């Protein structure tokens, strides 16, 4: 039951993109096509889950015992950067097709605030390891959901007649606002 609440709230109620404004850069930047947005979501799911797990272990077994929790930001960002690099290398060797699909999105993820944001949030919410992993996966699914819906809408927008000044990013942002409004319907669910 506990896990169920975490999952529903991370995907719908406090959606990572539309409600918490994490990972806006890829949300606006690579949401031009449905296919690329699925690729990006897959890469985020992969890195987010591993990163949250590793940073959780580091926080509990290194930072807290040595009393250096104030170095959290530095530690986490370094771990995430190293992890992304490692995932890239391993994927290249182990599963070339998966690397082909996710490859170009991986370097972008280091500066995706969703990864660092979820890692930090897992601690401020006092989750244990299992809960953190579930939270990370659910957040990534929420990211993917918002991303794919948004990409579908943008594909339609390309065919519409839009006033000159609103073309491109401005109309996309307004659309995202309306999408966020739709997601607000879920608030109060949990």
């Amino acid at each position, binding site marked *: 039951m506990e896990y169920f609440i975490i999952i529903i709230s991370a995907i719908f109620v406090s959606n990572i993109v539309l409600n918490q404004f994490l990972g806006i850069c890829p949300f606006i930047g690579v949401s031009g096509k449905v296919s690329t947005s699925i690729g990006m979501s897959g890469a985020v799911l992969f890195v987010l889950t591993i990163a949250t797990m590793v940073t959780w272990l580091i926080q509990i077994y290194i930072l807290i015992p040595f009393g250096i929790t104030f170095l959290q930001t530095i530690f986490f960002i370094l771990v995430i950067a190293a992890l992304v690099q490692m995932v890239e290398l391993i994927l290249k060797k182990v599963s070339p097709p998966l690397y082909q699909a996710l490859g170009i999105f991986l370097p972008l993820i280091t500066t995706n605030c969703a990864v660092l944001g979820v890692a930090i949030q897992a601690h401020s919410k006092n989750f244990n390891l299992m809960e953190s992993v579930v939270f990370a996966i659910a957040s990534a699914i929420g990211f993917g959901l918002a991303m794919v819906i948004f990409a579908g809408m943008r594909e339609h927008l390309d065919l519409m007649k839009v006033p000159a000044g609103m073309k491109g990013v401005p109309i996309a942002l*307004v659309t995202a606002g309306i999408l966020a409004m739709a997601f607000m319907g879920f608030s109060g669910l949990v």
Partner: protein
Amino acid sequence: MNQWKNFTKGFIKENPVFVLLLGLCPTLGVTTSAFNGLGMGLATTFVLVCSNLVVALVSKQIPDKVRIPTFIVIIASFVTIVELMMQAYVPALFDSLGLFIPLIVVNCVVLGRAEGFASKQSVTSSIFDGLGMGLGFTFALTILGGIREILGNGSFFDVKLIEGDAIIIFILSPGAFIVLGYLIALMNKMNKKIT
């Protein structure tokens, strides 16, 4: 003259938010009021100026391969300083900005300037560039926060302007996207007129 250009380009012509579209996460996330926007902007400005300064000083010594990780460590150190300072001196602001203070590390504006400008230019130019970009970012955040606060709460910098109910949706997440969308459209229009 040249330094003046480095300083002013961040406001309109290369405004990090409205024109370059960098650092959108904090832009949307913290601007529920003009004061929050201003606080976030100033914190980012501090990090930008300091990291630009240090990056410009050491960039000759850093091997090319570990360039980006080094920059990230430099930025993360300054973010930690800001984090601890704000927690000590402005705890109310620290609480309302919350998660977005550590997230200055992954703000693309900061890394973008370190990589794109400070690593190639002289120390003084880098400081002016950091200051200009930071204040441009602050300017954008304060405007966005101000508009959202006026429409959504009927106040500006906590001074009540309109009595009674306001349009609450502008304080909530959809308002952030919509107001920013219209501001960028306006900026596009203005920039086209200037050039």
